[in-house]
């Protein structure tokens, strides 16, 4: 039987929200969330409209968001356990009637709220401004865009909490966080190396046909960069200079399933590490 006190989870979440929403890094990054979409839409304004048109803007934004959101999530989570362990706060909290699983979920909820608020303030606000300027927008794919980005944020948030439960000190967590951030590109390079080994001319953008089958589930930022065009009805994507057909089976459900799987794996691993951890 798992004992679980929701009130405790809520209290921890509230504390994390209060503490981290005042984090100056998060404030700066949220500012970027507001400014970048506007800059991107101006960049797409080569046509007759001032703001380029929402759909183009959104497609341009994915490139930015899939770099920026993992960064914000990692900043929020990478030392949330190791750092508080090192400075002694964690030992105080765990001397209260708090179970470690409550601590973990409280942190995910609280830090997740900061992340979601930051994404909404940034992309939501710019979405509204652009819509007002342009007057026409396809809302369903834009909502899908926001949801995929939130999913991406939670993959990296739970991933970075896992890192912070794994690493003994804040300093080591920085190393882990960097590895986590570049996990997608590392997977990509690995797959290309295998492709090259199999005789594909990778240097001339001739990728093995199974590349996306592995790249998408293993690299959450690439997943979002594929899922958003799919939401906008695209059947092909440009990948490292080559046009690739998106496999038929890659639907909303598939993308959501992969994101959820990552989140669940990271939560389970994080919990096992936190339970074993000596504070």
């Amino acid at each position, binding site marked *: 039987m798992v*004992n679980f006190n929701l*009130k*405790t989870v809520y*209290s*921890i979440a*509230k*504390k994390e929200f*209060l*503490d*981290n929403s*005042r*984090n100056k890094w998060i404030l700066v990054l949220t500012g970027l969330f507001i400014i970048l979409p506007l800059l991107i839409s101006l960049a797409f304004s080569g046509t007759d409209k001032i703001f380029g048109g929402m759909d183009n803007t959104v497609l341009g934004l994915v490139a930015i968001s899939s770099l920026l959101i993992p960064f914000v999530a990692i900043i929020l989570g990478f030392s949330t356990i190791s750092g508080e362990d090192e*400075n*002694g*706060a964690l*030992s*105080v*909290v*765990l*001397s*209260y*009637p*708090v*179970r470690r699983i409550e601590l973990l979920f409280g942190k995910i909820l609280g830090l997740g709220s900061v992340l979601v608020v930051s994404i909404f303030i940034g992309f939501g606000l710019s979405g509204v401004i652009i819509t007002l300027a342009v007057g026409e927008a396809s809302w369903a794919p834009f909502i899908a865009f926001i949801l995929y980005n939130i999913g991406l944020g939670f993959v990296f948030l739970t991933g970075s909490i896992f890192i912070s439960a794994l690493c003994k000190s804040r300093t080591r967590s920085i190393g882990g966080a960097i590895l986590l951030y570049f996990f997608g590109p590392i997977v990509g390079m690995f797959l290309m190396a295998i492709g090259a080994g199999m005789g594909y001319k990778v240097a001339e953008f001739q990728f093995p046909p199974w590349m996306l089958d592995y790249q998408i589930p293993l690299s959450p930022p690439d997943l979002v960069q594929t899922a958003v065009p799919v939401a906008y009805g695209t059947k092909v994507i440009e990948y490292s200079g080559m046009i690739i057909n998106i496999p038929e089976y890659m639907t909303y459900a598939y993308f959501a399933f992969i994101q959820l799987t990552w989140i669940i794996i990271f939560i389970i691993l994080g919990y096992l590490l936190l339970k*074993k951890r*000596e*504070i």
Partner: protein
Amino acid sequence: MVSKTIMCPNCKNQITIEGSPGERKIITCPKCNTRGGFSFPGEGAISKVVSGSSAIEIHGLTKTYNGLKAVDNLSFNVRKGEIFGFLGPNGAGKTTAIKALLGLIHADTGVMKIDGHNMRDESIEAKKKLGYLPERANFYKNLTPVQTLDFFCELKGENKSVILPLLKEVGLEDAINKKVGNFSKGMVQLLGVAQTMIGKPSIYILDEPMGGLDARWVKSIREKIKMLNKQGATVILSSHILSEVQNLCDRVAIINKGKLIAEDTVSNLNKYLNIKPRLEITVKGLDGKVPSIINELKGVEAANAKGNTLLITCESPIRVKVISALEDAGFVIENIITIEPSLEDAFVKLVEGDT
């Protein structure tokens, strides 16, 4: 009969001796013939997990780090209502034992109880009436002290009306709108103390509560501990500075290298250790020799000279006589310092004896 393994202070040889609780023995090291005295802990110090009225029971606690026993088969009880000093030099295993008791680290073996609750399966219940101050407490740098205590109140289901009085009580009333990230080390420690009092705990566990604080704060924390104890709380506090706690504690346990080496009341401990402060007097032109008037003075138990400083062990009423005797003999006294007995002194005495 109990047996104890002690270490020869001279050749580090391990010697096992037998005796009855409270007994004092003179031992000669079989290896290097160094003579020394050892007192077995008094009756009641031999702990068993028996009494339901113990505030804290630790039985057979062992914790190994990379093959090294940081805590080695440690057992002791803290009785309800007492101030209990948990003493030992740096690295003795105090923090490790406390963290294992709280379940923050996982012990190899041992049964631990707080207020009768077995920490294995009833730790949540036990922690409701517990206040803990870790060795290094720090909190959330972007929160104010009010927000910090608000959080801890929620975790204990305590009414938030206690927050401002608590902050006032520890002397942080002028800092209620400051971020904890801008607090000094002492202020953070005071916030840590305030935090322990949330929910009116019946048991306090304080790990080096005065560590690294200046005299003013040490005094204020000492007073706080006395007051909490007067209100009925049990307090266990660890320290590596005996003088800091010896007038505070009803009983103490002393550990070294993870093992319990003494557990007794402070007065018993002081009696059989015969620990006294020393007087360090700087005398102009002393030249490394103890003046004969000091050697002849009644009540001076030991006198040593090094350069122009004179080290004298005596009861406090004799100190005045020492100083006037020196002045009468025409010596010019430049400085006088009282050196409080350190725990290291106690250790030497515990193993080596005072003979």
